[in-house]
Structure formats: structure tokens, C-alpha cells
């Protein structure tokens, strides 16, 4: 009983820490590239608005980066303090991957961020641009290595077990394990979507506050266009990811679909309340044959059900259904909202492009064209990427349970024998700190936006039209 409590608490603690951590990489990975883009546009066009956009977002980047670093350090200690069994069993594989992450990614980003943030006046323009690019590249490398490891935990290959310890036999197979390309692509796009909506949402907020500066227009368009372009790609990649999972982790897909019996003509459920005890769903609303069509590309395609994953005595060998089922729907639902909103925004801005005010007359998108409801909808969507990303990770990770490394070791085997009260105490403290930091983080971003909208940001004069030059709506 005691070990079980420690297990449950350690799982909650790990989930809390990684959930908090991933919020910030999700922002820094893509925001690094977006900053590089702003910097590049400034160099190409000499237009001050790009530099103003850079200056604003680099602050958000610095803040997110610091949050990512400190929570990441917590993560790297977690393996030792809470999951010693993990490294003892698969350390020969996880170790080198983590080491390569530190060597090729962490140092790169940590050193060059100093130059990127504070070096503008000290180094030549090309070196500053290079530093910005290297920071972005570093965050991407870091995402690559950690996703390799995480994907290997889902679809392990290229190793052999000797006396209960994994030994690598083929590094190529380990790195390019079957789910890695899909997961990496899906995560990178998730990061860009998160940043696209963050940039669009914060810019919409500044616009609503009356900010009509040229950089706000540039930023809002950049954000919305990123969202509109990438969302369809994300659906495509997500679909391929799901098909790959169907091949390697069918129990997870069965839980995502809420499909209790292996059968054909499976509907795509939009709503249902899975009941674990009765092994059925209540209040199903679905699209007939939808799941069969998506997963097997046939109306009557046979989709594996949860009944395939029962032990002789009836205990479940599949993940808990409700959290997987629902987090999957939260992710897809958020994605669909993103698609609708970004396309609607682009459409309105394009249709009323003649409203465009600015130097380059007749530019093909006009922020003035956005109806108020859409502007107001963009603001809360600023953090929608976080919701979808967390929901996606919950689907993936809870969907792997009871395995820690699919088919190799269960989560229970890895846990440390730390007294439960100690885990509980530290858990509560972490949660309190994280709650405080999240509030501080979001309010500082709102404060920075308000300050910039009121025009008292540190920026060269003339970069914006004088306040009030364009009448507010």
C-alpha cells in the first residue's frame, strides 16, 4: 500500500513538473525562429517595425526561456530522485540520448542567449543574427533529442535485454524509431501553432487597447498566417501519427476512440462518457462509420477494441479510458477552433484589404478588416496552444500506461522508495510555486503588452505613428 501511494504521488509529481516545463519549451522552440524571422526581415527591409516587433517578443522569449531552464533542471533531477529504476533498466539507451541533448543543445542555447539578449550594441549585426539563429537551432535540437527518447519509450527497438537491463544494439534504429518522425513533426508544428496564436492574441489585445502601430499590424498578420497555414498540416500529420500508433500501440488508439469491442463500422464519437466498470459508453453521440473511415479508410474497416487487451482474469491491460478519450478530444477540438479562427481572420483581412492603412498601400491583408468579435476571440486564444499541447501529451503518455517503456518495463518498476509524505510535501510545494509563477508570467505578458500599447516602451521615436494619429474604433 505504501509503495502504491508513493507510486501514485510520484506520477502526479512527475506529471505536474513536466506539464509545467513543457509550457515554456513549446513557446521558446518556435518563438526563437519567429524572432529570427523578425530579425531577418529587419536586415532585408531596414523597416523599423520589424525591429520593434523583435524588441517586444525578445522580452517574452527571455522570460519563457528562464522559466524553461529552471523547470528543465527540475526535470533532470527527477529521474534520480523519483524514478531510479528507469535509469537502472534503460539507462544505457536513455543516457546517451540525454547526454547528447546537453552537449549539442543546452550549451548552445544557454551561451548564445546572452549574446542574443544583451549583445545588440556590442557585436556586429551578422553576429547578432547568427546568435539568434543558433538559439533557435539549439531549442530545436533539444526538442529533437528529448523526443527521440520519448518516442523510443513508446516504440522501442534496436536493443536487447540482458539480465533485465537494456543494451543498445543499433543506435540508428533507436534514434529513428517508428514513432519519432511523426511525434517530432507534430510537436514542432504544435510549438509554431502555440506561438502563432500567442503572437496574434497579444497583438489583438494591443489593438483593442488602441495600439495602431505598424509593428502591431505586422505581428498580428504574422501570427494569424502561421496559424492558418500550419493548422491543416497539423491535422494531416496528426492523422498519420494516429495511423502509426494504431500499428504499434493499438490499445492507445482503442482508448482514444472509446471503442470497447473489436468490430467494423465503428463511429467517430464526438461525445461519450466511458464507464470503465461496465466496459461501455454512456450518452454516445457520433458520426456513423467515422472511426473506421479515418483509421482503415473503409466504411466497414475493423478497428481494434479494448476487449483485445484483457488478462485471463479480466484485469485491464489497457490504459485508463476516460482521460485518454477526453484529452484527445480537447486537443482535436482546440485544433478545429484554431483552424476556424485563423482562416476566418485571414479571410476578413483579405476581403477588406482595401482598408489597409500604411506605407505600402494595397497590401494584401488589412487588420482593419477584422470584425470586433474575431479580435476579441483571438485574445483568449493566445494560450490555446498550451491547452492543445498539454492535452496531446496527456493522450500520448496516459495512453502508454501501464507501460513506462512499451513492452519493456512498467511505471511501477521504476519508482523510488521515498516515503510517501515526503513526496506529497514536495508535490504541494511545487504546485504552489508553479501556480505563483504562472500567474506572474501571464500577468507580466499582459503588462508588457499594455505598456507597449500605451507607447511608453523603450523604442526609437518615429517607429510608430504618433498616438492618436489613426482614430480608434
Amino acid at each position, binding site marked *: 500500500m505504501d509503495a502504491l501511494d508513493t507510486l501514485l504521488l510520484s506520477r502526479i509529481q512527475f506529471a505536474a513538473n513536466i506539464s509545467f516545463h513543457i509550457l515554456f519549451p513549446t513557446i521558446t522552440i518556435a518563438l526563437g525562429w519567429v524572432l529570427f524571422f523578425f530579425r531577418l526581415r529587419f536586415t532585408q527591409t531596414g523597416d523599423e517595425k520589424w525591429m520593434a516587433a523583435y524588441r517586444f517578443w525578445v522580452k517574452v522569449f*527571455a522570460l519563457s526561456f528562464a522559466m524553461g531552464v529552471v523547470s528543465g533542471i527540475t526535470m533532470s533531477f527527477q529521474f534520480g530522485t523519483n524514478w531510479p529504476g528507469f535509469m537502472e533498466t534503460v539507462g544505457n539507451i536513455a543516457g546517451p540520448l540525454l547526454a547528447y541533448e546537453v*552537449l549539442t543543445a543546452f550549451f548552445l542555447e544557454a551561451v548564445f542567449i546572452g549574446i542574443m539578449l544583451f549583445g545588440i550594441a556590442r557585436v556586429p549585426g551578422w553576429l547578432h543574427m547568427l546568435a539568434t539563429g543558433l538559439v533557435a537551432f539549439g531549442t530545436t535540437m533539444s526538442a529533437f533529442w528529448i523526443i527521440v527518447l520519448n518516442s523510443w519509450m513508446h516504440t522501442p527497438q534496436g536493443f536487447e535485454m540482458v539480465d533485465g537491463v537494456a543494451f543498445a544494439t543499433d543506435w540508428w534504429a533507436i534514434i529513428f524509431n517508428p514513432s519519432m518522425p511523426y511525434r517530432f513533426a507534430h510537436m514542432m508544428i504544435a510549438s509554431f501553432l502555440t506561438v502563432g496564436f500567442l503572437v496574434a492574441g497579444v497583438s489583438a489585445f494591443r489593438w483593442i487597447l488602441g495600439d495602431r502601430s505598424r509593428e502591431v499590424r505586422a505581428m498580428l498578420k504574422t501570427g494569424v498566417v502561421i496559424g492558418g497555414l500550419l493548422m491543416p498540416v497539423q491535422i494531416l500529420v496528426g492523422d498519420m501519427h494516429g495511423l502509426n500508433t494504431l500499428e504499434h500501440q493499438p490499445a492507445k488508439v482503442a482508448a482514444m476512440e472509446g471503442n470497447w469491442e473489436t468490430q467494423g463500422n465503428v463511429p467517430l464519437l464526438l461525445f461519450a462518457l466511458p464507464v470503465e466498470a461496465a466496459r461501455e459508453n454512456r450518452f454516445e453521440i457520433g458520426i456513423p462509420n467515422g472511426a473506421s473511415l479515418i483509421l482503415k479508410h473503409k466504411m466497414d474497416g475493423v478497428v481494434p477494441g479494448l476487449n483485445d487487451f484483457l488478462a485471463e482474469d479480466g484485469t485491464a491491460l489497457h490504459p485508463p479510458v476516460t482521460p485518454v478519450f477526453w484529452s484527445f478530444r480537447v486537443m482535436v477540438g482546440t485544433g478545429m477552433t484554431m483552424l476556424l479562427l485563423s482562416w476566418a481572420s485571414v479571410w476578413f483581412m483579405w476581403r477588406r484589404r482595401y482598408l489597409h492603412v500604411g506605407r505600402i498601400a494595397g497590401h494584401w491583408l488589412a487588420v482593419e478588416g477584422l470584425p470586433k468579435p474575431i479580435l476579441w476571440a483571438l485574445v483568449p486564444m493566445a494560450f490555446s496552444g498550451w491547452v492543445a499541447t498539454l492535452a496531446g501529451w496527456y493522450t500520448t503518455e496516459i495512453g502508454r500506461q501501464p507501460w513506462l517503456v512499451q513492452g519493456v518495463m512498467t511505471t511501477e518498476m521504476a519508482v523510488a522508495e521515498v516515503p510517501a509524505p515526503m513526496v506529497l510535501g514536495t508535490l504541494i510545494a511545487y504546485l504552489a510555486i508553479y501556480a505563483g509563477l504562472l500567474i506572474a508570467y501571464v500577468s507580466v505578458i499582459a503588462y508588457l503588452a499594455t505598456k507597449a500599447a500605451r507607447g511608453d516602451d523603450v523604442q526609437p521615436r518615429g517607429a510608430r505613428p504618433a498616438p492618436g494619429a489613426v482614430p480608434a474604433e
Partner: protein
Amino acid sequence: MLPDFTNPAEWLPWAFASLMGLSILIYVILDGFDLGVGILFPLADDGEKEKMIGSIGPFWDANETWLVLAVGLLLVAFPTAHGVILSSLYLPVFIMLVGLILRGVAFEFRAKARSGQRKLWNAAFFTGSIVTALAQGFMLGLYIMGLEQTPATYGFAALTALLLTIGYSFIGAVWLIHKTEGVLQGKAIDWSKGGLWSVMLGIGAVSLATPFVSPRIFGKWFSVPEIFYILPLPLISGALVLWLFVMLRRMPFYGDRLNWLPFAVSTGLFALAYVGMAYSFYPYVVPERLTIYEAAAAPESLLIILVGACAVVPVIIGYTVLAYFIFRGKATALRYD
């Protein structure tokens, strides 16, 4: 001390222990001065605070990464030791992490939050720095005591916690001598003079305690001919301390010359103390319980990391030096443009 270089199961663990040791030493010195500046923070006025932050702003993140590397190496090269050490230091590790979190985010928040909140984040910056230092010192003490948890070892750990904290503030102060000028530099010189006493005490206390942890270490120190190998360590350390005392009394020199020398000498002092400790504990990674050879991971995995490390670490050192070069000279308040 040297392993058999024809046998991978011997020299690989040895190489990794050296790499990990080096990484910890670099961490202690580099993040040592960051944390030290944080600990000295309340002693400065508002304008000086900005300069102090400016003196570490471009570096602290990279400095902290050496800790990540050290823990990473412990994790990958000595997985069993990693489990033993970190689960028995569960609470101090947690407290250190809270300190690191506070310090790191306060750095950014104090510059970006509304000005009314600046006092709060300054306090968080100081608290984070000092809590991190205390927790690290406490862990050091427990580690020296072989990770045993008794009232006596806790007492010793409390002492090392205090001494390491003062040691960090000392190296922070000599860093400030290098990076600042005028009144603040004068203050930094005074702080260094005060800190030097405790540094001396600290190194002395640890050196005295270590041989008594086990007869094996005692033998390594006080038998012939070993004593002659080890004798240069205390002698050179003593000379360096003396040199620092004399130098600090005359600083600042005319035209602010040699302002980097106290930092360099202090680095040497820390390195010597560290080498002494490493010598005592070798070949154990968990003192008196687990040697590096017993705790090592599979040679194939170690080799693949070593290849990467040999290729990448020189590059890392290269661009780290570049960053210090770019931000050379006296610190100014940090600006994003």
C-alpha cells in the same frame, strides 16, 4: 591513480569520473560567482544592484548548464550511484531546485514586471541565491560524511552549508572587483576581505574532517610516501591565501590594473581544494560504498557519449570564451538594445 588504458571497463569509468569532476568544478566556480553576487545583493543600493545584475546577466544561464552536464554525466555514466545519491539527498535537492527556480526567474521578472514589484523580485533573487548555496553546501557535507544521516553528520553538513555560502559570496565579491569600478568596487574589496577568512576556515574544516571519515582516506593522507604527493596542496593553498590577503589590502591598484587577479587566484584556490577532495575520495563515487568501476554503465554506451563529448566540449569551451570576450570590461546596467 591512473587506470589501465587498455581495458575499456577501467579507463572509461575513469575518464567519465574526470569529466564529471571537471564539470562540477567549473560549475562551482562559474555559478559560484553568480550565486555569490546574489547573496551580496542586499548589501548594495539600487543603482549598484543594476550593475551587479549586469555583471552576471549574460552568463548565468550558461554557467548553470554545467550543473546539468554534471548531473547528466552522473546519470549516464554511474546510474546506480545517481539513484543512491539523489534519493538519499531528496530534500536538500528539492530545496536547491526551489532556490534555482527562484533565482532564475527573479532575474527576468525583476526587469519586466511593473516597477512596484521590483522589491519583491529582488528579494526572491537574493533568497533563491542563498537557499541554493546553503542547500549545495549541506549536500557537500552529507556527501563527505558518506551520506549517513545522524545528528552529527547533520551538524557537520550545517557547517559546510554556511561555509560554502560564504565561499560563494567571496568568489562573487572578487568577480565584482573585476567587473565594477568606483564605490561599488570599493565595497566589493571589503566584502572579499571579510569572506577570505571564512574561505580559509572552510577549506581547513573540510580538510581536517575528510581524513577522519575513513581509515582509508586517513592512510592516503598521513602515510609515507603518500604524504609527499599531497603536501604541495596545503602549502600552495596557504601561499595563495596569503597572497590574496596582501593583495586585497592594497586594492584597487593604480589605474585599476590587475583587477582580474584576485578572481584568478581564488579560482586556483578553489581548484586546489577540490583536487584535494577528489584525491581523497577516488576511486569511490558514493564515499566508502560504491566505486566508479562498480557503478559504471555499459562500456558501449559510455564510448558513444565520449566520442560526442570529445567532439563537442572544445566547441562549447570555444563559444563560452567568445561570450566572455564579448561582454568583457566593466558591467553596465543591462539593456535589450
